[in-house]
């Protein structure tokens, strides 16, 4: 059995989670400080969650293609995103970004605001407050959001297929491998990939429950 889809999936999901983690946290932090237009900005940041992945893939294709200024710019600096695994990372990151952003924001908003007020009256700067007060207090929720965002990236299919295609050994991920095997009439292979994905997903969910549970216990100690 050719295992490359497993490694490609992991590579893409890990790289994508790195992006969503950083930008998701920053976005979550930034939005809590917005005075105006909070709902609109939140909507824009969350929209990949509700759009069909094919629509996201279509928009990415347009953005990265030769017909857009951005696409030509990428081309001149030597970044190729169409039909590459890097392109799949971008697709997975865009799709899983709202999961991270919304989870992190929820966790940050749960933090007792008096802690933030206290930190301010003590003379801490806003970024110090984020680093030393808000993030540690929101850690269980942020960890859970990260795991979910990883899982979402791992299962990405539609946008990835449109942007990165289905190149065996290059951009064929596990979820695309299931589809390809079925198309090719190889039910046994499809079944094997399904089994692997189910085991993987279950492990991730259990891990997430352990993370949130531990955070809860620490608080109620």
């Amino acid at each position, binding site marked *: 059995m050719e295992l490359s889809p497993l490694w490609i999936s992991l590579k893409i999901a890990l790289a994508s989670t790195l992006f969503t983690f950083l930008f998701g946290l920053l976005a979550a932090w930034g939005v809590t400080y917005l005075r105006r237009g909070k709902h609109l900005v939140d909507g824009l940041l969350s929209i990949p969650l509700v759009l069909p992945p094919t629509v996201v893939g279509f928009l990415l294709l347009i953005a990265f293609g030769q017909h857009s200024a951005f696409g030509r710019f990428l081309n001149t600096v030597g970044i190729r995103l169409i039909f590459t695994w890097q392109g799949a990372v971008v697709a997975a990151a865009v799709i899983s970004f709202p999961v991270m952003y919304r989870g992190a924001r929820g966790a940050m908003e749960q933090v007792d605001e008096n802690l933030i007020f*206290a930190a*301010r*009256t003590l*003379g*801490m700067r806003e970024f110090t407050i984020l680093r*030393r007060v808000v993030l540690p*207090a929101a850690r269980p929720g942020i960890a859970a959001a990260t795991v979910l965002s990883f899982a979402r990236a791992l299962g990405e299919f539609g946008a990835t297929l449109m942007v990165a295609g289905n190149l065996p050994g290059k951009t064929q991920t596990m979820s695309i491998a299931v589809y390809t095997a079925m198309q090719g009439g190889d039910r046994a292979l499809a079944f094997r990939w399904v089994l692997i994905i189910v085991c993987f997903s279950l492990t991730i969910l259990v891990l997430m429950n352990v993370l949130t549970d531990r955070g809860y216990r620490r608080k109620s*100690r």
Partner: protein
Amino acid sequence: MKLTVDIEKRIGDFHLRSSFSTEGGRLALLGASGCGKTMTLKCIAGIERPDRGRITLGDRVLFDSEQRVNLPARKRQVGYLFQNYALFPNMTVRGNITCAAEDRAYAEQLMERFCLTEVAGQYPAELSGGQSQRTALARMLASKPEVILLDEPFSALDNYMRTRMEHEILDILEEFSGPSVLVTHDRNEAYRLADRIGVMDAGTVVEVQDRQDFFDAPQTVAAARLTGCKNISAIRRQADGSYFATDWGISLSLEEKEVSEEITHVGYRAHYFTFEETADFRGEVNVFSCRLRRVIEDTFSVVVCFTQEKNASESTDALLTWIVGKDAWDAVRGQVEAGSFTLRLHPDRLMLLKEKNSK
């Protein structure tokens, strides 16, 4: 150092109009919950932003809506003790106290002073109520504030701890050179901890007085209620120059008192009624017969609720309260519990009150 506050803020239907100043010393803002006490403190600390007004501390302007000054909280040097202490749960006691302190040696000193060295490595969740409060106090002092704000600091403690922590806070406030503002709904706490007391009622600071004056001679109905005055009635001037307490249904003779136009109410403390043996008091003023409604035994006294005999009003304002010491109770118990008795009201004890402060 002088703290001057004159701010307005609207939150939905609620309209906060806080205006007071304190020249060093300890000020207590006393008010029922939801009267805007905490909001006032938050505006001073820079946590909430007033709609209009001005806050100055010494020669620094903390907030001025006209000059468009709104100093961020971290630059105000305002120490704020939160109701739930707001200790950082992910930091040890030492971490909490030193995290924002520029002068670490001073922070360590404070830790020692507050007997926290032994628990320095513990997390807030592992601390007792007293230790939590001491940690919060040390953390606040470590940032070297110029004014101290205390937001109902004892509400999370039991009676015994409260008394002990009051001593500690008094020590700190007496040592502290700047002004302090305590917010509380407990009149006794305000009296014990502050030199001056301001009453807040429905978003407005109605009066700031010396604490003794405040309890002896409250000026408004709200202040009288907050000092624990149980009997308050509206009054009406009668043709013969006497007054009629409309809620109580009792005629009052206030010959020796000067009653200004502004006076709309009178208050009478429940301890000051005296029992009259005889029911034959025709011609005497300020003596009236009473109908018993209820007797409640308290720890050291008996609370007698009654109305004027002929007052048929079912309103709770018509109900008067007389508090008798247990010793005195035994002598009068028989007559009172029979349902009808006579009491004397001493006009020199009457508090003349305004409905609202005219200022």
